């Protein structure tokens, strides 16, 4: 039994949440049971992902390859749990569990009725499974299917809020996402037409041999894939859907969308660019420069827009655009340290932004105030909520001993390695701007006179969820060792393919 689970772990982390997700709607009258079940499965998922990561980590760079249904690679679908995959799996598991805890008994006021919370959890687990699948899959068409599962469940989670703006945001999101999907499928089709393979490894070998014969098709495929996945992961000028979708979603959904969903697409883009096209080919196509420049623009423009917002969740949503810019910038700099920084920053941002959205949700639920200017004195009324908010803000700004710093430091070193002084300057300017839009919230919350109304921290599960995530922010910042090593190995693996 145990060996069966162990041997099938790469597929179980994907399939288990999907199966449980489809069982939940049968328990629609028993919301408490569903909540317990979801928390239990996320805890099990954390154990599973941790075990898989320990196998890969202690194996010293070995990757676990799993053939679906026993069919070997060029014919069957292949799952590969390498360093990048387990890092992202760990990220998903670390963020998903506290958010499930936060949602317990806390959703019905945002989604309407209690039976709708059950459907929300179904979407939540579907998204989790799809993201885990994106992390481990090594098959191009499988990427498309999982991206679609994730997109539909994200869209459903945005629309779950009983508010007409949420439906509108969800529809805009869905229209842009389906354009992205069509482009992604077109790009995958072009790669398949010229290489004859859907497996990333085989496609990459074939592509490195024949790419000079099809210069225009390669261009077309790369641009389709870049725009298709760029829309989904909010690459700078394609981010227009993100602020609405992330700010009108229910708060736990905002946390998981901003923290995890966009990262899944980002990882898919990284895998396709580095594992299929390969570092040298994307440099010849100048895709790396495009991504770096768009990432830098995203950091600056996203931060400036965030500064201009007065609605708390909207400011955090624009901040996500800016922070994703860092990940893209590192991806485009094509060197080990920048890629390490990019992957670690993805992890650090996932935990920090999840905390920020959960805390914002708790504040809005308790006070009914959505604007930053109305939050005076809330730090003294809701000490735990504001404390975790402060920790996560410090992490995003990049203060040492918090998760965000480690990622930004490696990105800074990486941009110096690449000889790109502008990128280094943008990393620092982005940090300053991030402080400029997050610290005023903390100042208003702590140092302005408190309102007379009686407010208090949310209930026990919510507090524990937020504190667990805040603890993860600090642990990643103080002892980043194993995670940083995984990110470094992942970067080396990405760059090894030429």
């Amino acid at each position: 039994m145990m060996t069966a689970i162990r041997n099938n772990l790469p597929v179980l982390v994907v399939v288990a949440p999907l199966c449980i997700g489809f069982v939940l709607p049968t328990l629609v009258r028993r919301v408490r049971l569903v909540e317990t079940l979801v928390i239990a499965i996320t805890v099990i998922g954390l154990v599973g992902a941790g075990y898989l990561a320990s196998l890969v980590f202690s194996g010293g760079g070995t990757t676990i390859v799993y053939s679906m249904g026993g069919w070997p690679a060029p014919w069957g679908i292949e799952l590969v749990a390498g360093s990048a995959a387990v890092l992202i799996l760990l990220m998903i598991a670390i963020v998903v569990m506290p958010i499930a805890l936060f949602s317990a008994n806390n959703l019905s006021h945002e989604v309407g009725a209690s039976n709708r919370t059950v459907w929300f959890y179904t979407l939540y687990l579907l998204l989790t499974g799809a993201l885990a699948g994106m992390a481990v899959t090594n098959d191009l068409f499988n990427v498309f299917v999982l991206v679609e599962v994730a997109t539909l469940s994200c869209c459903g989670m945005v629309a779950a809020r009983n508010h007409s703006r949420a439906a509108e945001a969800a529809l805009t999101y869905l229209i842009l996402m389906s354009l992205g999907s069509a482009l992604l499928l077109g790009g995958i089709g072009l790669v398949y037409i010229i290489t004859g393979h859907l497996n990333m490894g085989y496609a990459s070998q074939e592509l490195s041999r024949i790419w000079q014969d099809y210069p225009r098709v390669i261009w077309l495929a790369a641009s389709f894939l870049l725009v298709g996945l760029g829309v989904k992961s909010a690459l700078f000028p394609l981010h227009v859907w993100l602020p609405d979708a992330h700010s009108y979603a229910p708060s736990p959904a905002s946390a998981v969308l901003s923290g995890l969903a966009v990262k899944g697409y980002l990882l898919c883009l990284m895998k396709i660019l580095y594992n299929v096209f390969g570092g040298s080919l994307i440099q010849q196509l100048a895709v790396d420069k495009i991504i770096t420049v768009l990432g830098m623009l995203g950091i600056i423009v996203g931060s400036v827009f965030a500064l201009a917002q007065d609605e708390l969740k909207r400011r955090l949503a624009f901040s996500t655009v800016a922070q994703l810019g860092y990940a893209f910038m590192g991806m485009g700099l094509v060197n080990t340290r920048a890629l390490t920084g990019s992957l670690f920053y993805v992890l650090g941002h996932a935990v920090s932004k999840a905390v920020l959205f959960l805390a914002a949700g708790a504040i809005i639920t308790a006070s009914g105030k959505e604007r930053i200017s109305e939050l005076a004195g809330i730090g003294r009324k809701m000490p735990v909520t504001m404390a975790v908010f402060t920790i996560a803000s410090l992490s995003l700004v990049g203060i040492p001993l918090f998760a965000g710093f480690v990622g930004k430091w490696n990105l800074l070193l990486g941009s110096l390695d690449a000889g790109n002084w502008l990128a280094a300057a943008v990393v620092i300017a982005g940090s300053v701007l991030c402080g400029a839009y997050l610290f005023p919230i903390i100042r208003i919350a702590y140092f302005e006179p408190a309102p007379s109304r009686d407010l208090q921290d949310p209930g026990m599960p919510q507090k524990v969820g937020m504190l667990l995530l805040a603890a993860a922010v600090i642990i990643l910042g103080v002892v980043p060792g194993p995670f940083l090593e995984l990110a470094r190995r992942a970067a080396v693996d990405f760059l090894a393919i030429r």
Partner: protein
Amino acid sequence: MLLRKLLINYPYFAAVILFAVGAVIVLTRSNLIKKLIGINIIESAVFLMFVAAGNIRSGVPPILDQTRPEAVYVNPLPSALMLTGIVVSVSVSALALALVYRLYKAYGTLDARRIAEMRSEVRNR
């Protein structure tokens, strides 16, 4: 020469035209239902490209035939993949139509521009 290439590869040419038509509809029409139709046209274009890639002229269906060892089989994989693609496309359309219905109930119109106007009026008040 170029014309000859286009004529030989007419399925791909048709896919490009369909893609462009769909993109124009999505970008220029403000009626939400028309936007969804545009998306479906774009997706059909991609499906057409995939299926055309699997086809071989004068190829036979990919069922092993011992009596004709010289037969060239068409590639069944792209068609099988596009079945999945069509299922995905149908579910996206279903979800989108459900959302459009919800918006219609809230605002009483299908026009994206009108909805944006009504929303900004609410905000300014």
